[in-house]
């Protein structure tokens, strides 16, 4: 008989993963993958639509509807090591776009909601072996 284990202990392997990545886990592993950050309450409806679409493609999102400044929200969710932040303000609502920020990177990219959903759907998949 052969006896095998890969991780050995799943709990310990989780710890190893956290330290290996210093908390910046790959997208497919991140407990929360996207934080949707509307700039103020005028943008809540659009933000909820984004949430809906993300959940449809099995993403693990959260939505931050608190009455806080956008920079505060960005900082808080970066400390929480969330890989993707989706910011939506009036421009985004008007053009049906999202401004995307990735953890650890200063720059932002603005893309159509449709395009982002499509590419995220692929990006968030577990690796094939």
């Amino acid at each position: 008989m052969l006896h095998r284990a890969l991780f050995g202990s799943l709990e310990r392997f989780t710890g190893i993963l956290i330290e290996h990545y210093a908390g910046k886990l790959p997208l497919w592993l991140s407990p929360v993958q996207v934080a949707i950050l509307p700039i103020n309450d005028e943008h809540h409806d659009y933000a909820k639509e984004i949430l809906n679409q993300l959940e449809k493609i099995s993403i693990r999102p959260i939505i931050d509807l608190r009455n806080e400044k956008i920079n505060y929200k960005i900082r808080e969710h970066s400390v929480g090591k969330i890989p993707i932040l989706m910011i939506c303000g009036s421009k985004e609502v008007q053009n049906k776009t999202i401004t995307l920020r990735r953890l650890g990177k200063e720059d932002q990219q603005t893309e159509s909601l449709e395009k982002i959903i499509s590419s995220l759907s692929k990006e968030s998949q577990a690796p094939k072996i």
Partner: protein
Amino acid sequence: MPIVQLPDGKELTYKNSVTGLEIAKDISISLSKKALALQVNGEYKDLDTEIVKDSKIKIITLEDEYALELLRHDAAHVCAMAVQELFPGTQVTIGPVIENGFYYDFAREEPFTDDDLIKIEKKMIEIVDRNDKTTREVWDRKKAINHFKNMGEHYKAEIIDSIPGNEDISIYFHGSWHDLCRGPHLPSIGRIGKSFKLMKVAGAYWRGDSNNVMLQRIYGTCWKTKKDLDEYLHNLEEAEKRDHRKLGKTMDLFHFQEESPGAVFWHQKGWALFQTLVDFMRQKQLEAGYQEVNTPEIIDRVLWEKSGHWEKFQEYMYTTSTPDERTFAIKPMNCPGHCQIYNQGLKSYKDLPLKLSEFGKVHRYEPSGSLHGLMRVRSFTQDDAHIFCTEDQITKESVKVTKLILDIYKAFGFENITLKYADRPAKRVGDDSVWDQSEKALLEAIKASKVDYTINKGEGAFYGPKIEFVLRDAIGRDWQCGTLQVDLNLPGR
């Protein structure tokens, strides 16, 4: 007329006894300048040891791995010298080499402060600069005990008293400072270099007994070069920044509580991460033909006695007492459970290989002092699987498992893997032919993987050889995670 054989096979003949240093000089002047110690017939000794008989000799320099141990051992002495120069009246006890450095335990009323550590380190540099020559003397036991007692070094006296009768009482002098020590040591104290650092102070009981006095343990690290020291310190800093217990808090993943030591309270986010691992594994195992099962956590002691766990594992097992007066134990391993499933219904060779997997939660009563976050717990989930197969199938299955493990590690971002192969121990079950076959199977799996491996001779379990999979993380630390173990014993039981 000793004949000295060097590592390259060359022989040097001497008319009279000769020291290691003289041999080094005869080989080359540059070697004699780099020489730190001597290896005589496999044993390490001081460089100025006299060789009287025919011997196999190796001159140890900084290029040898053993040099690091020498540096660290001498550094411990230098630390003790510095402490006693700065804080007279402090008694010395024991100062061994440990992983990445050394420590020395001191008996002193006043606690050492962080400022004191800085002063001691500075003094150590001064002592290194003095570069006192190191000499060794062998003393009479009674003389040694009285000598240290008169100096006020009662711990040293006690240690000498407990040295077995047939062992030499070896005393090393660095200048006027001296210590009881087996050695060997560097020719002079300056040779340790300056790539060391004192790390921290902690409490430690004399002789490890909590009924004894609490001593003060100064920890230090020591390396061959400043570059090595800096790299070590940098890695330590990095490790602290990414300590999973800290991140577990800031990322809201899990917590622990005193009411259940070594058992994880998974918060929603942490559990989502955990379940992603399980889902991924589950899918890959399904694709590889495994059947996932689930077995009881609480099983009668009778079964554990049959499997041998009761005898070997008892101190780690949680047991229950129930009104029906049976003794149950909470499983520390999943194996016996899987065998019960396998034994149900008649199996023919056509059913093999049969692969049963389980995400089984096991519980082991580890000592509380050893518990550490998620890394060392009392309750954990094993991604356990047993492959029931014929002797002919062992090779193919071993190759498959090895490939699966390496592919999955890669998927998680671990590319730097090494394998540790352990073969038959002296005490074992099963006849040699089965061991031959199993070892051959594992070695074939290793060769097919094309991954670096080391052989730990005789370190296999009594019931079979094994391969351990070690992955290296982003800051160069090694973690042994995967195992592929051949079990020649359990199905029979």
